[in-house]
């Protein structure tokens, strides 16, 4: 009965436009750690000769490599799980409806919601925090990092357990309730970080293109950031209310299933 219950929960989520896991967690700074490069069939590093200092360096790199490797493997499993969920939702739709017409419409809101999410994350990491080093120690950075961490751990464990058809209720509860606090806090962290970066952007003119130049175009990253901050005003409420709507549907659906049992 419990197995059936969680299957219904899975199908219920699929029918309601199950949230897929896009490439939303902050990507690791390297594509593959040096350690991995050595264990894979890469000939480049083998060529380097070594004194003892170099060997010590290599040793340290290998240990760091192992950690990063473990993280990467975990990250990739999670990514796979997330996208697998989306694939299952799509396959289910096709099996039930016999057509792919309307599939995008079913998953689009959630997909767009998470992809927008992903874009803003990539932007925060690479175009703000990484590029403008002076703000890396701001409290607002810690704020959004903690929020993202808690959010992602909750989300990926939710997907993993779901796939294993063994979803503890508290995970589901966490997934659909934590965001109520985490979203606004995360947004605050992001906005404060961008705001802190503004004076440095103005001073250095980073990512900006000035006149004159032969393509007769200019770009002011400072004003672009101000527009980005302003865009949170229409975007954030939409995302927030979408999550609230999903929460109502899923948690309400859960109640119905239990009654049937």
């Amino acid at each position, binding site marked *: 009965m419990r197995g059936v219950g969680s299957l219904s929960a899975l199908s219920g989520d699929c029918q309601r436009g199950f949230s897929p896991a896009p490439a939303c967690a902050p990507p690791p700074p390297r594509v593959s750690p040096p350690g991995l490069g050595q264990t894979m069939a890469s000939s480049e590093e083998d060529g380097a000769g070594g004194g003892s200092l170099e060997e010590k360096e290599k040793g340290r790199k290998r240990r760091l490599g192992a950690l990063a490797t473990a993280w990467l493997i975990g990250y990739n499993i999670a990514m796979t799980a997330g996208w697998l969920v989306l694939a299952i939702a799509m396959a289910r739709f096709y099996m039930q409806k016999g057509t792919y017409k309307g599939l995008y419409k079913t998953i689009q809101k959630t997909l767009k919601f998470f992809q927008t999410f992903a874009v803003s994350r990539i932007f925060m990491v690479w175009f703000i925090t990484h590029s403008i080093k002076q703000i890396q120690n701001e409290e607002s950075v810690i704020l959004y990092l903690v929020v993202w961490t808690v959010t992602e751990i909750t989300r990926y464990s939710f997907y993993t357990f779901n796939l294993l058809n063994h979803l503890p209720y508290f995970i589901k509860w966490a997934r659909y309730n934590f965001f109520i606090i985490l979203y606004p806090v995360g947004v605050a962290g992001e906005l404060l970080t961008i705001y802190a970066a503004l004076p440095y952007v103005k001073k250095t003119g980073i990512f900006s293109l000035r006149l*004159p130049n*032969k*393509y*007769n175009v200019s770009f002011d990253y400072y004003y672009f950031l101000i527009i980005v901050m302003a865009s949170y005003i229409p975007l954030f409420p939409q995302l927030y209310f979408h999550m609230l709507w999903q929460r109502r549907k899923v948690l309400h659906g859960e109640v119905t299933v239990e009654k049937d049992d």
Partner: protein
Amino acid sequence: MKHYEVEILDAKTRDKLCFLDKVEPNATIAEIKNLFTKSHPQWYPARQSLRLDPKGKSLKDEDVLQNLPVGTTATLYFRDLGAQISWVTVFLTEYAGPLLIYLLFYFRVPFIYGPKYDFISSKHSVVHLACICHSFHYIKRLLETIFVHRFSHGTMPLRNIFKNCTYYWGFAAWMAYYINHPLYTPPTYGDEQVKLALIIFLFCQLGNFSIHIALRNLRPAGSKTRKIPYPTKNPFTWLFLLVSCPNYTYEVGSWIGFAIMTQCLPVALFSLVGFIQMTIWAKGKHRSYLKEFRDYPPLRSPIVPFLL
């Protein structure tokens, strides 16, 4: 003569909105819409969509009541299309904007570039030429709207005017700002580049105009007939041999010419966005042609010969 009765229900709520009795069998949908407006004046005919099925396609104004699959009491479903605005109004507004806006930048009106440059004209000849070309293009469009085009539909939804004007006016301001900027850099290859660009631009303007005239001549005044366009004696129309919508092909060509002339990235981006939009329209038009005409020439592509 047997008269019909027509009841009009709301497509969403199925409420009875209007009951017309003693309707002539040869009455058109347009006439029925006029009768409906009498009882609901806020729904002028242009914003009425009447259909036989609540979820079906809209009936055409020319459809005749007795030719429809209805009994002597016809049930029509009504959907409100929202506030409407005439195509002519939209075109005039969206084209007048760029014409004026560009000139504001060209004449270096105050508060744009700084007091040092107010009303000072550019020292580059290409900047003057660009202004003439840009203005010519939009004056041509305005005149074509008034004198040449024959529109299938009278109106479009009101919100389109805000969307369209933002697009045209926004891009016009963006490109005009850079072309007329005191720090504008003339084209890398100088006069040769400008000359070549001007030839492309003029050629495509003439081409585009020729196609508009050819399309106008396909359709008698006041009618909504659709025919396959064919090449005429005008060599610019020979592009019809290869393409369904040569007016769009020439339009993209004009803007490419203008981009080469000004060597301005915003112009290139405007050309690209325009190209994408016109390709979508051309593909739609091409598909309609294929659906409607069995004998449609197979060699034609929508917008780019052989490719797109």
